[in-house]
């Protein structure tokens, strides 16, 4: 017994021009729909991607006078270097050091512990020494180093601390 064949199969085999035309029209319709959705989703995707906003590059900042009470009491302070936080450490009277304050582990802001002389990250117990090297805990890399200069303005007044990108 011959198997039952659908009309569609017959038509496809014989290459019925109506059927072919229909397939072509359907293909064309599919392309138009794809184009339509593409022209909707492309702008939306581009819109959602945040634009690059150029930041003013900072190369040097003034971080206040050497007799800053915060600096004297805690031995450090966090200063704004453009939009980056920088930790300024007072090691001795004429020894200041500055590092990027963002921990290389997971971007927390570090602090300085005067008694142990360690730069320490509160988040996951990361430790850096006074050269910015990662010496304990999870941080994978040392902190970026900045250079510090003292600029005396008027005689008799305390000098100003200047932090420069090195």
């Amino acid at each position: 017994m011959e198997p039952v064949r659908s009309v569609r199969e017959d038509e496809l085999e014989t290459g019925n021009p109506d059927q072919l035309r229909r397939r072509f029209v359907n293909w064309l319709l599919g392309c138009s729909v794809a184009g339509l959705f593409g022209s909707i989703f492309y702008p939306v995707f581009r819109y959602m991607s945040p634009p690059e906003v150029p930041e003013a590059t900072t190369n040097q900042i003034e971080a206040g006078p050497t007799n800053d009470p915060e600096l004297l009491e805690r031995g450090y302070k966090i200063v704004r270097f453009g939009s980056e936080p920088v930790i300024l450490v007072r090691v001795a009277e004429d020894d200041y050091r500055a590092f990027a304050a963002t921990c290389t582990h997971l971007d927390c802001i570090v602090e300085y512990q005067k008694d142990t002389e360690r730069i320490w990250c509160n988040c996951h117990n990361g430790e850096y020494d006074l050269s910015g090297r990662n010496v304990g805990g999870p941080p994978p890399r040392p902190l970026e180093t900045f250079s510090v200069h003292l600029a005396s303005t008027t005689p008799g007044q305390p000098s100003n601390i200047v932090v420069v990108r090195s």
Partner: protein
Amino acid sequence: MFEAGDRVYGWLDDRISLSGLREVAAHKTVPVHRYTVCYYFGGMTLFFFLVQVVSGILLMLYYRPSADEAFESVEFIMTTVSFGWLIRSIHSWSAHLMIFFAFVHLVTVYFMKAYRPPREITWMTGVLLLFLGMAFGFSGYLLPWNQLAFFATNVGTDIAGAVPFVGEWAMRFLRGGDRVAGGTLSRFYGWHVAILPAITTVVLAGHILLVQILGMSTPPGQEKEAKRRRPMKFLPDFLLRDLFGWTLALALLATLAAMFPWELGDKADPFAPAYKDIKPEWYFMFMFETLKVVPGGQILGIEYEAIPILGFALAGLLLLLVPFLDRRLADSGRSPLFTGIGVLALIYIVGMTAWGYRSLVPVYVVLLTAALAFFLSIGTRRTPRR
């Protein structure tokens, strides 16, 4: 691959009865008669509402609702974000088109008397949705925090203050203080993106559900023709026509947004003199213009200004209650009185809008819409051959 699809379908069907839904959808029909084209206006309004939801959410990614940052953040969207100008222009154009089609939908439903029993609640939810749409427009107008919006909001909220007894309270409630300031912006933002959307979602769901349950109403006078003609299947015939309309609407929207991007103007300055021609959105124009012709003065301790304000509030209430006021329609199926009132109201609204703009464009827009609807009705009334 098709087998896998069938299996997923079967799995879902066992749990949420998709076949039942398909059965209902397959039996849904739309009556075919002279005014069948009017059944598309509600769907068109819904389309623009959906565009509003999507474009509004996108704008929220960059917009900052505070007096210090709002204007700058919109400026950032317009100038720096890729396609930001397009998204914002689409949001404002789509808002206008949504309100416009809501009006067209209301007018056609009104004159087709579709509010007669059992569709009273459908009508009332629809009128509420129009009011909600206008509240969306009013609250959204302030958000770019530019001069025009600032003074228009000042005027708009001040109008509320003229209402006797509750006016003072209403004005403070709207402004979030004694004057329009940063607090008003936060408050309008809250209404615009949270409170109104929440209410609208519920009312809109009810409105659409009722339309599904009750089906389309055949206007009185068209019953004979509707009976003679084979009704159109919703799936796929009506839906495909709907989608075709939506595609046209999207093309119109994209054209308007690209050719006429929405302006931003200058940042709001509460200490600068008011703009020469501050004007509300066009859909408030007829009320604004009515208030302008009322002279200053008092009667019995009530300001003259309060009379048209209360009049419009009453008109809104009557509009909401039309199904219950039009008693003769329920009894005899005819209500020439309400048709007459509708025509007069329409002439008043269009006339006052045209007067407000000192321009005939509003009249042309109405005529063009009517002509377009007529033209489209030729293409939509025919039942397709099978």
